[in-house]
């Protein structure tokens, strides 16, 4: 359960997210890939916060440094907002193009 364990997990999640983003033929799958990426980032922050930064002593209570955790929380919030907008746009695309295959949405090019 060392830091490196978390980091490896996070790295794997990140790469899987990238892989999804690059190869999936469905806009929603791409969104899922993005969520994986964001999760890996949050995991990183949390892990670093736990291990790298020395714990704080606040009013005599030993608590881990939670800067990273807070960043991760904001990450989750942002992910949520992003997902909402993303899905709204996917809906718009679906309306206009009748498909959410990313490679069919290619009228703008060149």
């Amino acid at each position, binding site marked *: 359960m060392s830091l490196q364990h978390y980091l490896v997990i996070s790295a794997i999640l990140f790469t899987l997210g990238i892989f999804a983003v690059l190869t999936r033929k469905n806009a929603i799958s791409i969104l899922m890939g993005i969520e994986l990426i964001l999760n890996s980032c949050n995991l990183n922050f949390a892990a670093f916060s736990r291990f790298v930064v020395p714990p704080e002593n606040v009013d005599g209570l030993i608590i881990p440094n939670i800067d990273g955790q807070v960043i991760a929380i904001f990450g989750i919030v942002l992910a949520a907002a992003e997902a909402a907008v993303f899905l709204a746009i996917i809906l718009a695309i679906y309306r206009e193009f009748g498909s959410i295959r990313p490679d069919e949405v290619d*009228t703008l090019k060149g």
Partner: protein
Amino acid sequence: MVIPLISIILLCPLAAFVIFALLGLAKRSFPRQDLLSTAAMLAALVCSFLLLREVVPDPKPHTVNWISVGDFTFSMGFYLDSVTVIMLIVVTLVSSLVHIFSIGYMHGDPRYPRFFAYLSLFSFSMLFLVVSDNLLGIYIGWELVGLCSYLLIGFWFEKDSAANACKKAFLTTRVGDVGMFIGMMMLFAKFKTLSLYDGTENGIFTLVEGLSGTGDIIWLSIAGILIFCGAIGKSAQVPLHTWLPDAMEGPTPVSALIHAATMVAAGVYLTARMFPILTDTSSLVIAYIGGITALVAATIAIVRFDIKRVLAYSTVSQLGYMMLAIGAGSYVAGLFHLTTHAFFKALLFLGSGSVIHAFHAMHAHHDEDHTDGEAHEHDDHSLVHEHGSEIPPDQDMRNMGGLRRKMPWTFGTMLVATLSISGVPFLFSGFWSKDAILGGVLGHAMVSHSPHYYILFGMALIAAGITAFYMFRLIFMTFFGEPRNQEMHDMAHESPWVMVVPLLVLAVLSIPIVNPIWFNKDYVKPPPQSHIHAPAHAQLGPDTKTGDANSGFAFFWISEAQAAEEEGGKNTEKADDAYRIHKLAHNIAMVLSICVAGLGILLSWLFYHRRRFSAESVATKFSPVYNLFWNKYYFDEFYDGVLVALTVWKSRLFAQFDGAIVDGTVNGVGTVTRQIFAAFIGFFDNRVVDGIVNRVAEVTWAAGGRIRRIQTGAIQTYLFVVLGGIVLIILIFRAL
């Protein structure tokens, strides 16, 4: 008085031209341009005679600074010695006579005023050339006379032949001029001046004296030969002689003035002027070119039928003589022949002009009958086609014959000139000057023991005989026998007095007894500087050597004495020796030349008057030789075929080069860039971009197009680029 006089001499003709030009711009024209120009010329003539008295033994330059920047200065000015004055008189005299002659000859031409304006401009240029004291000035005059020659040869520019001829004349002489210019550059680089003699230490002549004995004079030989190149062009020496016969497309008075008496003689004048810088080597080259020219041109003249072409080749040949004389060191003899030749050759041309005018007037009358006074066209004559060359019928000697009764004055005067040029002894000027040359060459040969000059003497002698032959051929064909073209003969008539008078004057001038200039022995002096191949300056005055009884002609003896000086140098004993040799040489030459001339006249008489031999049969028998002569040694063909083709080909090549290579190179760079670029992007299917011009733009466009192709519109492609880019960056910079 010198400056005002020279100014008048120069400005009068110039003013005549300027008035014409200014009025022309205002779309008007002076009603009597002919009188204006003639008057200007006569004024110049008078001044030239007045100048005779002003010439002092030690000529002084009259210069002003023309251009001066920092250390170097180009001056412009007049240099007045005996040679200059003689040339001035010759030029103004012949020019005045030609002006007068033209009043009759050119009458009725639509561009009549312009003709005289051009003549004036020419006279100005020629006079400027003559009086100039430095090479740059000479060069300026030199080119200006070329321009006038161009304008006048092309005076009847509606004729394609005239248009071609004027261009050819200008271009050919310009080739020589470039040589001259290079020679000037060499002299300038060495001496930092182009002044010939400015009265101080800085003239070329003075400086070149300082060079003598240093031994390193190869460059000077080259420079001399290069300057002589200008003369080759201007004086129509082999191999640049071909333009002169073509120049006969111009009106005949022009031929007389420019292409017989003055401009073509400018080359001789220049060579004589530059005499002090000529080395042995350059002298020999000049002599050879002169000798070859004399012989080659004479042989070509034999087979011509166009009366003006015969005279043209004759001129070339005579100019060769003069060059030969200068090359042999007898530059006085060369100048002597220049003056005599100027008169009798001008006479011959004007006489032929008179003949042509006689036939020509007939055509003019015809034209007037039918076209109601419209300008007579010169290119609508029925042309006689012969070996591809076109001879106007009024110039074809085969249309002539028996004219001596119709045109007695013309006949008489032309006969005098012919006798003169043929070297008929004693009474005629040509004999003396030609003999001076022959004697000079032989003397030089004997003194220097150089086989070259013996050969040259032989060539000159043969040429002399041939000259007599073809000149009498001309006389016989034109004036004797029966008329060959009766219709034309009937219409022929004697020319009006304005044309005859100049003929008479010139005829008189061709008989030396009545020619006063030549009695004044002071007028031709050797240049005040020493000669590079005769380093020690002989102080002997010419008069010390002219005690001989038969020295009626100062020129003659001065020439001889001069030659002696050169050969002998300061050593009086040796000089005497040389003088003796020269005297002997002159006697030998005189005898030989008389024999040769007589032989030539005899043969001519047998061929063309008696008809004892048939010229045609001889021609057939020696057809290769005949063809060689007839085709003028194929010079024109050579130039057309090789040089012109080469030039045109070269320019085309350049033009293509411009299109293909320069733009192509840019394109090449572009292509390489594009290749790399394409490789980087990952597209290897390079189209070969066609088109030649504008390649850079095309290539960049193509590159732009390629970039567009990754912009597929599919978002995942973009993501590939992003993430691939990240990986690449990391890998690349990790490797660093």
